[in-house]
Structures are given as C-alpha cells and as structure tokens.
C-alpha cells in the first residue's frame, strides 16, 4: 500500500477543507476523485502531492510520512499536474517538457541521452512533437494543457496525480487523454485524477472516490458507487443510471 492518508485534515488559512480523512489508494488502478465544487477533492490531491501540509494527521508514502522524505527522491515517485498553470515567458515547448526530468538531472539541469528519449516519447504520446520549437506562451489552452501533461509524464513516476486534466481540452483530446491514461496504467502506473464529469469517470476509471464537504462519502467500482441515491445525496441531482451502450459502464442521465 503505497499512498495513504491517516486522519488527514488539510485546508487553507486554518480552515480545514478536508476533514479527518482515512484513505488508502488502491495500487495499479485509475482512480477518480469526484464531488461537487468545494468538496475538497483538489485539496486532498494537493495534500497527497505534498503541496499542502496537513493541519492534522499524515500522508504516508510506502509507510513513511510524506514530509519526511527527501524532496528530490519523492519527485521520482509522485508527479502532479496542477489544475491551473502560469504561462511562462520565453520558454519553448521542448524546454518545458525537459523540465520534467529535473528530479534526475544534476545541479545545472543537463539532459542526457536517456532523458532525451523519454522527453521525445512523451511529446509523441501527447501529440505535441510538432510544437517542440514554439513558445509555450503562444499556444492555445488545450495545447498548453497537453504540453504540461507531457512535462508531468516526463517525470516518469509510478504514481501520477492529475487535477482536472481535461479542462480546456476539446472532446477528441479528452478522449485521447483518457486512452493515454489507460495505456500508462497498463504499463504499471497508478493514476489519481480529479474529474468533473461523472460519466467520464465511470467510463474510464477503475475506482471512484466520492467526496462531499471534506469527507469521503463512498468509494469503489463505478458499478457499485454510481446509484440514484448517491447522485441525489452528493450532487443534489435527480438522475437515472443506465448502461453505456458501448463501454457497458454505468452512465447517469439527468432527469
């Protein structure tokens, strides 16, 4: 059990957003964090990525307190794609993706052959190879999102934490991304992602964790989690559950 939280409370300005959460992330799966706005799903993700320090309790990586592990070493284990990114000035796409190799490079950040192979591969997987020499500041929102994803993937970690990675992407790129995540998952990566779209989560993820007001309401496979009652309780939504005619996964249709 690699990533777990123990009685974890975390938030901003002394106000707990996530409240006393005990959670063990199932290894080797694609896990979606779901819940209404402000439920604490992003905050929980940030705490697991050690961006936020716990107010109470701990996050454990392989049984050890996350904040006690050397930061460079941890950066080779956990990678985070934040929800919003600043637009760096004067940085080319290939440079930004190369920054993902930082946990492995020396003090001057020199890239060796192995690093370059990984960088090229991730740029190809995310479909940004032809953007390599463009400035990041000149890209569209969706292109930029894919460049940052490539950077995060270049970090080459067994665990991947994504905060609403499909935002700003058009539908075809969203589907591509979810397929890419499955491909990476089949290579052995555990992927934890915050998602807005319940149907997307049910279709492409193995394990759903549903939160409301800083607490975990339920978790499990999409079939066991997605019920009419839950949608009413968590999202205040009157909806029916049907089977997706193609993927055979559960799907909610709003009444």
């Amino acid at each position: 059990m690699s990533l777990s939280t123990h009685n974890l409370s975390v938030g901003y300005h002394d106000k707990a957003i996530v409240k006393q959460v005990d959670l063990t992330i199932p290894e080797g799966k694609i896990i979606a964090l779901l819940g209404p706005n402000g439920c604490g799903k992003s905050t929980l993700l940030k705490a697991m990525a050690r961006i936020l320090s716990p107010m109470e309790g701990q996050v454990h990586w392989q049984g050890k307190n996350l904040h006690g592990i050397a930061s460079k070493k941890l950066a080779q284990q956990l990678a985070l794609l934040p929800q919003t990114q600043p637009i760096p000035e004067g940085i080319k796409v290939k440079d930004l993706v190369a920054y993902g190799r930082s946990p492995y490079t020396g003090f001057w950040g020199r890239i060796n052959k192995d690093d370059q192979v990984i960088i090229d591969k991730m740029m190809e997987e995310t479909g940004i190879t032809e953007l390599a020499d463009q400035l990041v500041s000149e890209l569209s929102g969706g292109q930029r999102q894919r460049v940052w994803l490539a950077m995060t993937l270049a970090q080459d970690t067994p665990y991947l934490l994504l905060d609403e990675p499909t935002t700003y992407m058009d539908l075809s790129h969203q589907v591509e991304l979810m397929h890419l995540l499955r491909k990476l998952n089949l290579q052995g990566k555990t992927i934890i992602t915050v998602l807005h779209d319940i149907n997307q989560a049910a279709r492409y993820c193995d394990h759903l964790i549903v939160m409301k007001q800083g607490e975990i309401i339920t978790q499990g496979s999409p079939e066991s989690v997605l019920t009419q009652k839950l949608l009413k309780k968590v999202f205040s939504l009157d909806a029916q559950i049907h089977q997706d005619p193609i993927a055979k996964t559960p799907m909610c249709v709003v009444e």
Partner: protein
Amino acid sequence: MATRSLPILLLALLGLLIANLMFGAVSIPFKSILEGFQVGNANYFTVHEYRFPRTILAMLVGAMMALAGALVQGVIRNPLASPDVLGVSHGAGLAAVFYMTFFPDADIRWLPAVALIGSLIAALMLWWLCGQHSSTIKLAITGVALAALYASCIDFLMLVKPLEINNALLWLTGSLWGRGWNQLSMLLPWLLLIPFALWLAKPLNLIHLGDDSAISLGIKANKLRLASLAIAVGLTASCVAICGPIGFLGLVAPHLTRKLVGGRHQILLPSTMLVGAILLLLADLVARTIDPPIELPAGIMTAIIGAPYFLWLLLRTK
C-alpha cells in the same frame, strides 16, 4: 536565439570597454590606451588611475544589478519586480545617507555594510507587510510605496542636515564619478555571490512553472525564494553602497535579456549580466561625453531610458 545573441553581446561589451577608456573630457586614441597602462606614460593617470577602474566598476555594478533583478523577477514571477521597485535599493540608500549625514567623519569603508543593513531591513519590512503568500501585484505596489517612503526620509534627512548634503546628493543620483581602485576593491568580495546565484538557475526555471509544479518536481519553493532574495539583496546593497541607487537597471536588463535569449535561467542569468554591464557602460559613457567636462550621473541616464520602459511594462500588464 541564445547562440546568436551571445557573440553580439560580447562584442558590444568589448567595444564599450574600449570606448569608455578612449572617450571623456579628453579623447585618447586607441593605440595610446595600452601605453597608458605603463607607469610614467603621459596618459597613465587618465587611463590607469581614472578611466580603467571606473570602467571595470561600471561593468561589474551593471552586471550585479542586472543579476539581482533577474533573481527577484525569477522568484516573484513578475516582470515589474526588481530591487529598486521593491524598495530594497532605497532602503540601502536611506541607511547610507543616514550614515553619511550623522557620522560625516566615519570611515567610508563601512558604507557597504551599512547599505546592506538598510536593504535587509527594507526587504524584511516588505516580507513582514506582505507575507509569504501574497500576490505579486500586492508585493510590487507595497514595494513602490515603501520606496517612496524611504525616498522622502532621505529628503528629510538632507533638509535637516544641509551641510553634508553635497556628498549625499551626488551619491544618491547613482554616479560613477570619482570612483576608482578603492571602490573597486570594496566591491570585489561581493562578486562571490555570483556563483551562488548561478547555482540557482535550475530551481529558478522550475519555480517559473508555479509553486505546485516546482514542489512536485522536488524544489523547496520557500527556501529557494529566500535564498534568491537574500542574494539579490546582497548584490544590490553592495552596488548601491558604491554607486548609489542606479535606477531601473535591475528592472530593464533582465527583461531585455529575456526577449533576447528566452527564459531558461542557465542562459538568462549569464546573459543578463552581460546586458546589465553593457547598459551601465553605455549610460556612463553618454553621461561623461554628452557635455564635457561636465559629467551627468549615470543614474540619470538609466532613469531616462528605464522610467518609460517601466511605464510601458505597467500599461502592458494592465
């Protein structure tokens, strides 16, 4: 971009170094300059005692102020930030004027230390007012307000102590006038900060991506911010102690350099030092040759270029 810009910058630097040795109240032909380094030569005093140390000083101060600006802009992620905008230069200035007016007989060699204390207090004041997690705009506006406060304190001191005003006034506009070997030797130990600044190039690249990504990539964001600002304060204070607050150099040089060579700090930091050196050499050359033998302070020249540039940046960032 970088590979094309670097040789041009180096050539410009070399040209300006020679021009600064050649031109002034009297012009010395190029071939007489080398002879001027020999003791006993007719030009020995002008070249070796006067122009050479001043030229080297302008180069170093320009490079250090630009580097300080790049460090501050790097960690604050705001093109409007620089040591002078954040009030650090004026803090150093206030401490130095206080020292000069109240202890007119004191040893001038303590001036860098006094300026350093002043700029440290100014930096801590800013930190204390804004806190760790404040927005960059808040930081910049607070810094500008503090700089104005320090500037008015300087004016007050000079009105109260009019006898010592001349020295302070000359020093305050940011001038290289009368600076020579003594000042150069005072500055030399501070050059040790430069390798430490270059050592931060890699983490500075990552903090550029936002704190969340930087931390996820293994950077200790707050420690890096503290280290960068501390080095920037040290660089600024040592320069201000010797030449006074030469305005806008720390703002303009890194910004121009980013346009020339891009945002990777491994290239940006060394290049911005070149650009800073070039700008100050140019400013001092113009200031000395525009109406000889009268000299304008180099700080006025940098302000003439820098102030409109700052306004343009401000308008552009809405």
